[in-house]
């Protein structure tokens, strides 16, 4: 049995269908990537898993227990941490207080201090800026803070929503290394949603391609990287043709 099992999830925004029956598995210890363009339903998928949106039908199971229909705090308590798109740090709180918010549910002060140290070890830059307002941090630092905040509750599974968004290539590499470290050294299972397919497929053991609410392709990360459609539509690798430039994309096939 997989750690996270999503089964035939359909999610609507009012009359608009965002997920049309999505099923996926995340095995414990894996990094799983979900690729997709704008509006494919990636964020909706994560929000449905973490309980911010209830699915219209289908089920989400974590560690063998049903999650769908439960509130976000219950989901968090069971060990799922959501790092939302655009980081969503508390801008007017200090870095330290932001991390404390992540450990809000932890009553044990000793453990809290321990976790804080763990985060600072992972992100020395955050320790240097511990007293600063989170809003004054750079984009990369805010992303680190969002990851650190999520880590405070010692999650079994982290849902990462476009951690590379708006970051310089150098910072993307840095975040990539951190995510890998979280997974390898700290044993956190990761479900990663990305538009940056290159980064995601470098990282992931397994990947799914989501398009207008449907999974159109799945496979091991390395296998997906070799898929012609993924290459053309997500990795930007294609023949340039006789004119040197090409604007149009060939029609998708997903086979």
């Amino acid at each position, binding site marked *: 049995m997989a750690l996270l099992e999503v*089964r*035939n999830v*359909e999610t609507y925004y009012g009359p608009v269908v965002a997920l*049309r*029956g*999505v*099923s*996926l598995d995340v095995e414990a210890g894996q990094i799983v990537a979900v690729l997709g363009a704008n509006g494919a339903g990636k964020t909706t998928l994560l929000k449905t898993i973490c309980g911010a949106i209830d699915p219209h*039908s*289908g089920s989400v199971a974590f560690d063998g227990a049903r999650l769908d229909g439960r509130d976000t705090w219950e989901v968090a308590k069971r060990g799922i941490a959501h790092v939302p798109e655009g980081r969503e740090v508390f801008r007017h709180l200090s870095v330290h207080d932001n991390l404390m918010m992540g450990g809000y549910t932890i009553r044990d002060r000793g453990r809290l201090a321990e976790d804080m140290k763990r985060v600072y070890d992972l992100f020395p830059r955050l320790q240097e800026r511990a007293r600063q307002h989170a809003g004054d941090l750079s984009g990369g630092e805010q992303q680190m803070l969002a990851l650190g905040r999520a880590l405070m509750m010692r999650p079994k599974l982290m849902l990462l929503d476009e951690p590379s968004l708006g970051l310089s290539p150098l910072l993307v590499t840095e975040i990539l290394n951190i995510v890998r470290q979280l997974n390898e050294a700290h044993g956190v299972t990761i479900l990663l949603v990305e538009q940056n397919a290159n980064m995601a497929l470098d990282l992931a053991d397994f990947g*799914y391609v989501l398009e207008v609410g*449907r*999974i*159109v*392709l*799945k496979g091991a990360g390395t296998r997906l990287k070799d898929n012609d459609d993924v290459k053309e539509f997500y990795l930007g690798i294609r023949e340039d*043709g*006789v*004119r040197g*430039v*090409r*604007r*149009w994309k*060939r*029609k998708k*096939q*997903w*086979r």
Partner: protein
Amino acid sequence: MNEMTASRAPAAPSSVIPPGVDTVAKLFWSTVEARGDAPAMTHKDFGIWKSFSWRDYGAHARLTGLALRSLGLKPGDLVAILAESIPEWLFCDMGAIGAGGVSVGIYPTSSRDQVAYVLTDAGARFVFVEDEEQLDKVLEKRAELPGVETIVVYDMKGLRSFSDPAVMSYEALLDLGRAYEAAHPDAWETSLQVAKPEDPAIFVYTSGTTGPPKGAKLSHANLIFAIEHWREFAPTTGRDHTLAFLPLCHMAERMMTGLRPLGYGGVVNFAESPDTVLENLQEVSPTVFIAVPRIWEKLHALVQMSLGDGTAFERWAYRRAIAVGEAVAERRVAGKPVPLGLRALYALADLLVLRNTRRLIGMGHARLIGSGAAPISPDLMRWYLALGIPMFELYGQTECSGVATYYGADEYRVGTVGRALAGTELKLAPDGEILMRGPHVFMGYHNKPERTAEAIDAEGWLHTGDIGVLGNDGVLKITDRKSDIIITSGGKNITPSEIENKLKFSPYITDAVVIGDGRKFVSALIMIDQDNVEKYALKQRIVFTDYASLTRAQGVRDLVAGEVDRVNRTLANVEQIKAFRLLDVLLTAEDEEMTPTLKLRRKFVHEKYRPEIEAMYAKGQVG
């Protein structure tokens, strides 16, 4: 119409070809002059339907033709068009023909190799392409295409910084036309007179099941005859609205959308793309719609699936209403009068249920609907008849200018295609092959005399490749393609299309290929309908991720097995499908397995899925 008493055929009283008109060029221009500001076509531009009058149509075609003349087009020169069905397609088609040229369409889904093949085989000097994507197909093969002198692009998006002496925008071409017109005011009128009736007007490339595509040559006289007899074939008037969605290089759409209006007028509405046909149908609500079986199956499935989401009362009301419709339809087909009581019931059913159902599928104003290009299931025809839309089956092929048979105005025959058109002959060869002779038989295949000799025999009979049965009353029933007839190892003759059509009647099955030639039993490869099967899977909590996993899910296989069993109950024992496999790839018109009319290519499927087929026969049971 609200009752099935309306006649299908307000047939034109006399010839639609004015006296003295004997070529498509002359007919086009006389129609432009006669219809003037009446709308000729509409298309969607940034989400809004915009129309072109006959005058606009004529002006564009004239400037296109004159520009081709200024570029050196000589009578009989080949002009190729590589685009989806859009108004510019027809502007250039008529422009080329009006200038004395011959026009040839290329499927927009063609690969660059296929494009290069047609351009070379036809010997095209001028090529019109829709956009950057289509342009690249020609440019990539340019070294092999020394005969291509000018390439004209309709949509220059993405090409602003591109320059090439042989490539120009359609706008620039029209300017050439204007300049030429100023210098030669009579050039268009003279060029319209150039072609003679026996000269070729168009080439239509048909993909043979074997060998490379063949360019069927159709003369002006062929097309004039087909336009003249269209009023028997599928009667339309100047008040009719139609929807064009197949590629215009397909003979059916070429006749319906390009040539028919030259004789009868009416408004042609262009669907935005092949994927939006259902939405466009609802927007346009055509009065006449001629489509391929795949579309009719899809619309039927849409109704079936909507019912599934309805209340128990709605389902009951639908069943009652359709039963009344069927009772009326049965009498109409049999040519019997409909009793008054039944008529009253039907009026009620129509008011409460059938009318809304028709509206749901964009058939709210449909007066006449036809199915062509492939055999359609009689059950499906009966269903449409019961719904209150007289559907008839059109029979024709490229080689007979797209038209072959017709029904009388008040006949509702299901499962037959009618009688030979006036002025043509029809008979069966000893082996049952349908033979035709008359002015609609094409000139032959370009550059392929041996293929032409196979198609037209010494006495002028066209060998259609179709097997049929001819009744004493001259009414023809199509059995199947001659090459598709299955003879099992037990020696039984089976017509696969009949079984395939029964399968396709299910909302869960999009297409099927029945196999069994030289085999012990009959089997099938089945393509499921993604939307409907997904819906079913979600309802039944069948877990799937992508399309391939959907086809592998046990619940889906059980569902299809149930549909196959249902069909098997209507079949003789030897015809029954004893094993089947689901295709695990979602196929579209871009795939080589599919024809442009969205049918699986039987030969191709046989080759490509050989391992799956062999596996079925090795295992030998339903799986």
